[in-house]
């Protein structure tokens, strides 16, 4: 029987290994959401009891430079090969990628080697000459959000909170935003494929919320790589994010979740810019719509302190969401440093309510 439209995602499934992962970090996440990756590792190790290795020898995949037209394909291919070599040396076979751009890069290089075997041969030779290393292809390669999806029911079972508005008893309305490179390049590598990705929608369904299916749901956040990286071109990025906000606003979302570091960043920061430049706010009562990563949401529901998992590092603040979830928080801890060191608070902003 042909599946109904809201079940088409189930045709696209992929193997997600169940333990012993090698973790590849993200350039953007480390900087702009500095607690997110550590929270991810904590959830996997402490809540799900998984073995995940964090290698100090790893580097960027260089994907941002590659997609900006800056470096040759041979260069990024060899950097990718070095990451695989490091995984082999550490004794792991399952590669977990923190960044969606990187995930697309790793899959693309593997596919290129499959379709153009001479490129794999050249890469092996270049890696050996440059570093003395050799590599085996990973047994399994997934994005970090795939593992949270795989164990979403286990996380739900351990959670202290649900995606329910405690003030009204209604489920929270959640926008899921999937990074373009998660499945648009290689649909078979994404849960649900490119048209009906379910990797975050599955979290919403199992954690008690409702999905918002708005017209521009699959539109790019507008990173554009070189378009954002240049101040002169940055309007490209802002315009695309605005298109999404305008499209989702009538559905009054309580929250946006994203699986791509860049998307999380842009959907957060462009709300601040639109508020300050255009006097437009998209949340309720002059607030923005909080934009969380999948592990930040998991962490909140599991009962982690919002200020220990770095929610204050977002420009759109999350207190309205915390109030709806019924999470008690101590405002005095929000902007403190190590061991409770008192730090001055960030400068006030004018339009976007903090």
């Amino acid at each position: 029987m042909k599946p109904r439209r809201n079940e088409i995602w189930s045709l696209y499934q992929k193997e997600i290994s169940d333990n012993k992962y090698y973790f590849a970090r993200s350039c953007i996440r480390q900087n702009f959401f500095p607690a997110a990756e550590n929270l991810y590792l904590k959830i996997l190790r402490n809540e799900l009891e998984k073995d995940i290795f964090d290698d100090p020898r790893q580097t960027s995949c260089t994907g941002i430079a590659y997609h900006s037209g800056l470096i040759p394909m041979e260069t990024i291919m060899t950097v990718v090969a070095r990451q695989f070599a490091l995984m082999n040396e550490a004794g792991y076979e399952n590669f977990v990628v923190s960044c969606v751009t990187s995930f697309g890069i790793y899959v693309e290089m593997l596919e290129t080697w499959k379709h153009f075997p001479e490129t794999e041969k050249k890469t092996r030779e270049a890696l050996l000459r440059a570093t003395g290393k050799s590599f085996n292809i990973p047994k399994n390669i997934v994005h970090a959000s795939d593992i949270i999806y795989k164990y979403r029911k286990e996380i739900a079972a351990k959670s202290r909170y649900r995606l329910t508005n405690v003030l009204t008893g209604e489920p929270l309305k959640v926008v899921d935003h999937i990074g373009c490179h998660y499945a648009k390049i290689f649909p078979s590598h994404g849960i649900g494929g490119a048209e009906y990705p379910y990797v975050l929608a599955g979290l919403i369904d199992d954690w008690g919320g409702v999905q918002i299916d708005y017209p521009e749901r699959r539109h790019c956040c507008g990173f554009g790589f070189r378009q954002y990286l240049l101040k002169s071109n940055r309007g490209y990025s802002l315009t695309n994010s605005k298109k999404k906000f305008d499209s989702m606003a009538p559905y009054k979302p309580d929250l946006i979740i994203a699986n791509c570091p860049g998307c999380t960043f842009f959907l957060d920061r462009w709300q601040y810019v639109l508020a300050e430049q255009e006097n437009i706010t998209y949340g309720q009562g002059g607030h923005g719509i909080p934009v969380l990563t999948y592990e930040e949401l998991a962490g909140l529901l599991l009962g982690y302190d919002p200020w220990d998992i770095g929610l204050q590092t977002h420009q759109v603040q999350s207190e309205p969401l915390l109030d709806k979830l019924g999470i008690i928080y101590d405002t005095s801890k929000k902007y403190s440093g190590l061991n409770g060191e008192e730090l001055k608070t960030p400068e006030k902003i004018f339009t976007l309510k903090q």
Partner: protein
Amino acid sequence: MARLYEQLDKDVRYKEGMKACMNCGVCTAICPAAEVSDYDPRRILNIVQERDEYALEELLKGDEIWRCGECLSCKTRCPRGNTPCYVIQALRGLSIETGFFIESEQGRKQLAIKRTVGDDILKYGYCIYIDEVDNETYPEQGPVWKWIRENRKSFLKRMGTSYGEMKAGTLRITAKESLEDLKRIFEETGGTARFEKIEKYSEARAKEMSKEFSHGKDEYWRSLYNE
């Protein structure tokens, strides 16, 4: 110099991305860049598949190939299995290799990206690093980012990062051995030569434009980045 199509034919992204375009325009319809700028992937694929050396050279010298945002939405939707973005990637590479990138306003901006993301990779091991991302260059970062940077020694420790430390973890100092590996990979695979080419052509153009050219965020860099 080998004829342009001879060079383009060697690029696997061109082979994979350009099969047989029937010019339906779905790529342009779905493209976020086409919606907001003077960019038309359908037109570009049509030019490329005509195999006209002169027309190809004009593309390589123009702004249009630099307007793609590389979201790759075009790959999902093309009914013929083409990937216009892969063709763009191959064209951008060829534009730099031939030096034609310096002829267009957008192409010249590659120097600004080389001196931020490109140099950061070899200095920090990552495309972006907090110490280099100031609010003047990235004003949309807002006051929260300014606050994080001003308090990063204490606050990033509270966030459990390894900022400033030689150990595993977020924002750690990347070990010298790893940076050396990256440097040798760049040298071995043409990454370093690409960077040098961008600097060399840019220096000549800056001289013609009477802009100060040295390193980092010099006058020429500022004009490319901001204007």
